[in-house]
C-alpha cells in the first residue's frame, strides 16, 4: 500500500479533494498556516481549524533563476491572496516561468503534485497553484 504524506501539516490530502487548512485564533480570527502555541496578534491560546478556499489571485511573485544547488530552476514563487483574505506562498506550476506569462492579479487555484518518494513507496505530496484558465493539471 502506498502511503502519501503532505509536505506540511496545513495541507490536507486525506479527503476527496486536497485543501489548505488554517489554524484560526478563537479570539481575534487571525489565521495561521501550521500549528501555533499562542496567537501572534492577540496572545490568546485557543484555536480552531478552517478549510481555506482553493481559489485566489497572485498578489506578488518572483521568478527564481539562481538557487541553492540541487534545486531546479527557473521556478515561479507566488504569494497568493486566497478568497477571504489569507495569504499563502507556493510555486506557480503549469505556467511558463517568464514575466510574459505570470502577472500580478492573475486568477489561480490550488493543485497538488508529488515532491518526492522513497524506496518504501512513501510519496511526499506538495501543493502549488495553477492559472485558473488552464484548469487543474495532474
Amino acid at each position, binding site marked *: 500500500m502506498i502511503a502519501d504524506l503532505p509536505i506540511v*501539516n496545513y495541507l490536507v490530502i486525506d479527503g476527496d479533494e486536497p485543501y489548505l487548512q488554517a489554524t484560526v485564533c478563537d479570539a481575534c480570527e487571525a489565521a495561521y498556516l501550521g500549528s501555533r502555541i499562542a496567537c501572534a496578534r492577540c496572545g490568546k491560546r485557543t484555536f480552531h481549524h478552517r478549510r481555506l478556499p482553493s481559489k485566489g489571485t497572485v498578489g506578488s511573485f*518572483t521568478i*527564481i533563476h*539562481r538557487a541553492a544547488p540541487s534545486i531546479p530552476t527557473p521556478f515561479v514563487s507566488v*504569494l497568493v491572496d486566497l478568497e477571504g483574505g489569507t495569504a499563502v506562498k507556493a510555486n506557480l506550476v503549469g505556467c511558463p516561468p517568464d514575466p510574459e506569462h505570470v502577472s500580478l492579479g492573475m486568477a489561480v487555484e490550488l493543485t497538488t503534485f508529488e515532491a518526492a518518494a522513497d524506496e518504501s513507496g*512513501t510519496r511526499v505530496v*506538495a501543493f502549488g497553484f495553477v492559472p485558473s484558465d488552464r484548469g487543474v493539471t495532474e
Partner: protein
Amino acid sequence: MRVNDPDSLWIIGVAMTSFGRYADRDAFDLGAVAALDAMLDADVTIADIEILVAGSVNQSRQYPAQRIQKLIGQTGIPAVNVLNACATGATAVRSVCQAIKAGEASIGLAVGCEQMGKMGMLGAASLGRERAPFEPRGHDGVVMPTEGLLGTGLMPGVFAQAGMRYAGLHDGVGFEQFAKVAQKNHAHSVLNPLAQYQKSFTLDEVMGAEMISYPNTLLMCCPTGDGAAATVVVSGERLRSMADDVQRRAVKISASVLTSDPWSPDGLVQPDVSTLTRNAAVMAYEQAGVSPHDLDLVELHDCFATAELIHYDNLGLCEPGGAGDFIDRGAPWRDGEVPVNVSGGLLSKGHPLGATGIANLFEVATHLRGEAGDRQIEGATVGMTHVLGLGSACSIHILERSAS
C-alpha cells in the same frame, strides 16, 4: 563653547574600513582597525571608553567584543555582543546610547564587523532537496525542505516578492523602476573610495545582467563581502568638557529607534519588511522633531533594488504610492530632491552584515561634518540612516550637524 542638553547623545568619532574581501584579515582585525580609527577621529583612547558593544552576524559565536578588546586594549570595561540580523551594527550603537541614557557610562564604543568572503547566497548552502526518511518535523509538520517546492524563502526572492507586492498595489512600478534604483546607486559609488565596487552601469546593462530573482538581476543584488565600522558616542554633558574641535565636529543623534514586526497578514508567509519600517520612521521623525522634507540625505537598506524602492514610501520620502514616479523623476539621485544612498548603498558599497548599520552612520555623519570630499552633499544639516534585518529588526537613526 556651545551649550547642549546634558542628556543628548553625540557621535564624536566614526570610521569604516573599505568594504571588500580581506583574505589576510579576520573580522576582528577589521573591527579593531575601525575601532582605533573611530577613537583617533574622536581624539580619545581605549582608556577613556566606558562600555564596548560589538556585533557580527557570521562571527557572533566567536564573541567579537572580547576578541576586539584583545586587539585594541583590555581595560576591564563591560563588553557586550549583539546579534540582530542586518540591524546588528545599528543595534550596537543603540545599546551604547541606552547605557549612556541609563547613566552607566558617559562615553562608549560601538563596533560592527563581518567576514563573508564569497559565501554565495545567504542561507543557500544549508538547503538540499532530499531528506529521507520522510517524517513531519516542527510545528508546521514539514516533511522535507520546502525551498523551491513551496515558493522561495531566500533573500533575493523575499525582497523581489516584497517589491512586486508594492508593484501590484501601486501604478507606475515595474522592472524598469527597480532597475533605475541600481543604476543610481552604482553611479553614486564611483565617488566613494571605500565602496566594494566603484563602477557605473547603464540602465540597459542593469536590466540585461544575469537574472537572479525576477525582477532583481545580478546588478540589483548586494554583494557579499568583508568589512567593519565603528563609532564613539558621548553624552551632551561629557561633550561639554571636550576640546573645541571635538565639539565642532560632533554630530547629534536626534533619534535612535528599533522596531520589530507587528502582526500582519503577509507576515504569515514571508517577512513583511514595510510595516516595521513605517513604524520606525514615524517614531524617528517624532523623536527628532523633523519631517521627511528636512532630510538632506538618507542612507537606507538597499540589500536589493526592490527593497530601496519600497522604502522611499515606507520612510515617507515620496507621496504615498508614488515610489515609481519618485525614481522616474530622479528624486533620489545625489542632485535630486532627497539624495538616497550617495555612498553607493549596499548594492555597490557592499553589505558586510554586522558592519552595515554603523557604515550608514559613518556616511551621514561625514556629510554633516562637511568632510565627504568628492561626494559631499553641500550644506547637509540633517540625515537619516535605516537598516532592516529579517525577520525582522528595523533601526533608524536621525543625525544633525552640530550648530556651532
